[in-house]
């Protein structure tokens, strides 16, 4: 906190306050509604097998692929009845955390 920080405006309950921001406030992650049709990796690892193909109809709970991380074979499962739209990974590919693995869509 110092005088040389630029004054910003912060709105609280309709009133506009002149003030400064903290680094933590400015770097906070803006919230976005999760898109349930996008499947992201929850841990970095290696894709050791893929069981589905694009346009394939899949039932809720069916295993889509295996992601090996920390010596564990994690099954990525279908969250609802639907269809595979696009697959963004290949077998034996190593992917980072939060990486888009697959696009899906629910059954109409």
């Amino acid at each position, binding site marked *: *906190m110092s005088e040389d920080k630029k*004054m910003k405006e912060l709105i609280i*309950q309709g*009133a506009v*306050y*002149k003030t400064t921001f*903290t680094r*933590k406030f400015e770097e906070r992650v803006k919230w976005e509604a999760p898109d349930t049709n996008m499947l992201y990796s929850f841990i*970095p690892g290696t894709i050791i097998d893929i069981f589905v193909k694009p346009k394939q109809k899949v039932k809720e709970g069916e295993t889509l692929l295996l992601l090996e991380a920390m010596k564990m074979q994690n099954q990525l499962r279908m969250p609802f009845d639907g269809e595979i739209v696009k697959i963004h990974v290949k077998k034996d590919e190593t992917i980072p*955390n939060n990486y888009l693995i697959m696009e899906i869509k629910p059954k109409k």
Partner: protein
Amino acid sequence: MSLRSNILDLRKRKKEVQKGGGEKAMEMQAKMGKLTARERIIALLDKNSFHEYDLFVEHSAKDFGMESKVLHGDGVIIGTGTIKSKPICIFAQDFTVAGGSLGIMHARKITKIMDHALKMRVPLIGINDSGGARIQEGVNSLAGYGEIFFRNTLSSGVIPQISVILGPCAGGAVYSPALTDFVFVVENISKMFITGPSVIKSVLGEEISMEELGGARVHAEITGNAHFFAKTELECFEQIKTLISYIPRSNAKKALAYPPKPPLKGKKIEDIVPVDARIPYDMRDIIKTITDGSEFLEVMELFAPNIIIGFGRMDGETVGFVANQPMVLAGVLDCDSSDKAARFIRYCDAFNIPIVTLEDMPGYLPGVDQEHAGVIRHGAKILYAYSEATVPKVTVILRKAYGGGYIAMNSRHLRADFVFAWPTAEIAVMGPEGAANIVFRKEIAEAENPEEMRQQKIQEYKEKFANPYVAAAQGYIDEVIEPRVTRSRILHALQVSENKSVFLPSKKHGIPPF
């Protein structure tokens, strides 16, 4: 052997052990910009006051070739001494000896001095500079950590515990500092984390340097694990000495009083605060018009600076200040500032330090991140801490006191002993802008010129409710005071509260919203 030769033998033995890890290791230590453990103790304590114990303790490891290794003092120095003539117990890990790694005898030396500190009711200072558990000693080194954590917890709220991080402090080791009252860090020297950069990289694929992950600035500004940040070790020691001057040696004592002195002549208090509640000012300037000699030791200066906590003196006696800072985030309450204030309030309460609260805040910080981070649970900590505190509690409302924040900032309803308000105080369920929008929604919507009507209604609401007199009419405010008498009113309030005695229902302990 004659007595003389016995003495010479003792001196020789002492000299040998005091070499620590030897010249080479000491050079390495200096290269990293660090003092040695012994140099640190000497720099921190009063001249010639340090007395060392357990100098000749040796490690007891028998595996992995350890049996043939000599580790002087087993990598830690313990003893007693004084700071500003006040007795303290101290331990300092010696990084030059096996990287300051913690084995069972090392831990036993630390727990010995911790037991002394608790028994003798004197502050404990721990200087951490260690590579972590001594792997060769296996579960014994874990046992050592556990014994330390247990004693940290037992001593909590009985004697002041101060941790000084002057090197690495990683893995389980970090939990001892985390259990203590105040953590001191030094730029480029302190490193604290549970899992280091290499593990994070291999598991999560995230690359980060040690400094960015757990350096001094990170803990002082982002995590809130550290309370005092310094650029050099010597600056850090000065901070510790100042802190020691403000706090009592145990929960059975009051902090030592100093000769009273008036605040420095500077800006007049009434000239610091703009009347428009939306324009900021530096609350620290207000505190400095109140404290003796305008001195103020700010705690956690860089973390959640939207609230200010710290120690000052009034008529020579230590006072803890909790104050909103309009200069940062308009002085809102949020998760971090709630944690920061609540823990400080509990510290003051445990160690018989009266609390003065200076209030000027617009409410809670809105945001999904705040709600999801648990601002309900975190915000509740302030309510809990103020309600539970039985030390004298004085509040001065300078300008805004809106909504839940009004209640939280040591209001009458949480048993503040004295609540004063400036004539500029606005005590209401929310600010005029927000309130007018709700109360006069219909009028505003139906008006020919809604914006004009809104402004008119805001003004109307302001005149009626944005003042201290509605609250004063209910007795929630004891007195509406002119700003220039702020210091004298607080002083008087603290004087008449000196023998305060309240009774809380007996219980084993409460369950605060951690």
